[in-house]
């Protein structure tokens, strides 16, 4: 017996399959597995490249040297300077050490370390440290080597000659005096002969200008130029003030040109500028007084001085 469907019921429609991840077409790769594998491989590759088999280091730069050899490198720089006096080259070489401190003071510190150890036991070491001392002292730096090692200086020595000075015979007198054999007596006197050199005036201060700049506040900018106005590096410039002086050299800031050297003044103090032994000092002191820039900012007056050869 069959049961007839009521004519009012619609034809039965098969139900749509529920969406399921099992029904989606499978990708060839499992991306989560790829990511996990990638991370594992990356970690393993880096570990191998950095720890197990790092690239062999054959192109070491001076800044990568161990401290001991870095000291040797600094010694070589100072020795080279002792021969050629080329400050620009010294600066380039010191920059290769990528120091975080004042490179010239670093030379003083290395000299201090070496002078404190056994490096000075040999004459070669002693000579090297003296070369370093000459270098950093010329730049106005100091270190403990100054107290540990005496620097050979080529300053003119004071020569003391003891010469006999004859005493003149006494004038004749009416009263006869007994004849004496010792007519002249030698009395020691001291004659001090100090070698002198004629004053050198190779350079002359041709201009002094002032300017007011908030970024260059209280600066003495010194330029040493030749006849054509081209900069001359390695020239000493000395600044004097009440309590002391400082000597610095042109060309140590190559980005400002070979003629350039600068000095930072203290507010209210007066300074004279000269090239030691080569020029006369400025007649009027340069004073770091407050000024106002074009932008209305407060700063200290800066000076720009130019030295050129005489004739």
């Amino acid at each position: 017996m069959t049961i007839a469907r009521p004519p009012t019921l619609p034809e039965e429609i098969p139900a749509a399959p529920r969406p399921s991840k099992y029904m989606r077409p499978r990708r060839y790769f499992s991306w989560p597995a790829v990511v996990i594998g990638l991370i594992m491989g990356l970690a393993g590759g880096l570990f191998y490249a950095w720890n197990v088999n790092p690239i062999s280091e054959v192109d070491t730069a001076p800044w990568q040297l161990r401290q001991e050899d870095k000291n040797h490198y600094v010694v070589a720089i100072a020795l080279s300077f002792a021969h050629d006096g080329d400050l620009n080259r010294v600066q380039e070489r010191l920059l290769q050490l990528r120091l975080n401190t004042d490179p010239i003071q670093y030379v003083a510190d290395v000299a201090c370390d070496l002078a404190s150890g056994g490096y000075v036991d040999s004459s070669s070491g002693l000579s090297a440290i003296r070369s370093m001392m000459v270098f950093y002292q010329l730049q106005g730096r100091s270190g403990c080597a100054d107290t540990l090692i005496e620097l050979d200086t080529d300053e003119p020595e004071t020569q003391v000659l003891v010469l006999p000075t004859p005493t003149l015979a006494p004038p004749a007198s009416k009263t006869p005096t007994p004849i004496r054999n010792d007519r002249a007596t030698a009395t020691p006197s001291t004659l001090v002969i100090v070698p002198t050199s004629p004053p050198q005036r190779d350079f002359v201060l041709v201009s002094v200008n002032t300017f007011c700049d908030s970024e260059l506040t209280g600066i003495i900018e010194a330029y040493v130029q030749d006849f054509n106005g081209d900069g001359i590096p390695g020239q000493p410039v000395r600044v004097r003030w009440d309590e002391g002086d400082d000597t610095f050299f042109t060309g140590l800031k190559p980005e400002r040109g070979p003629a350039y050297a600068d000095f930072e003044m203290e507010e209210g103090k007066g300074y004279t500028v000269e090239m030691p032994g080569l020029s006369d000092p400025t007649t009027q002191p340069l004073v770091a007084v407050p000024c106002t820039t074009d932008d209305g900012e407060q700063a200290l007056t800066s000076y720009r001085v130019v030295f050129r050869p005489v004739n």
Partner: protein
Amino acid sequence: MRRFFVSLFAGFIVGVGLGLYLGWIQFPVQFVNSPAADLAENFRDDYTVMIAAGYQADGDVIGAIERLRILNEEDIPEYVQDVTVRYITNSRDVDDIRNLVALSEALGKLLPIMEPYRQVTLPGQQP
């Protein structure tokens, strides 16, 4: 499961390659406590030139040898000679060549090619 491991392996291979590239080429290990013997050739040359200049300043050939010893060269006179010849053939700075020639001569390694750069002391001239 097989698909998972194949994907893991593929990712691992790619990751290893990427890691080696980064570790060896892009961000290689930078040593900071290297001996002077590992200096790059241009810095070794520069160091040698500096020592030669120092020799010109103090005339201390033993000191120069001692200072060059940190480069770990077996035969220092031979090494100085090689550097000098290379500087001459590459037309490097004349002052550097003169310093190197002076040191080579002091080490007994003067070659004919160095003669033009040799500094001689004339009679009555300060050495």
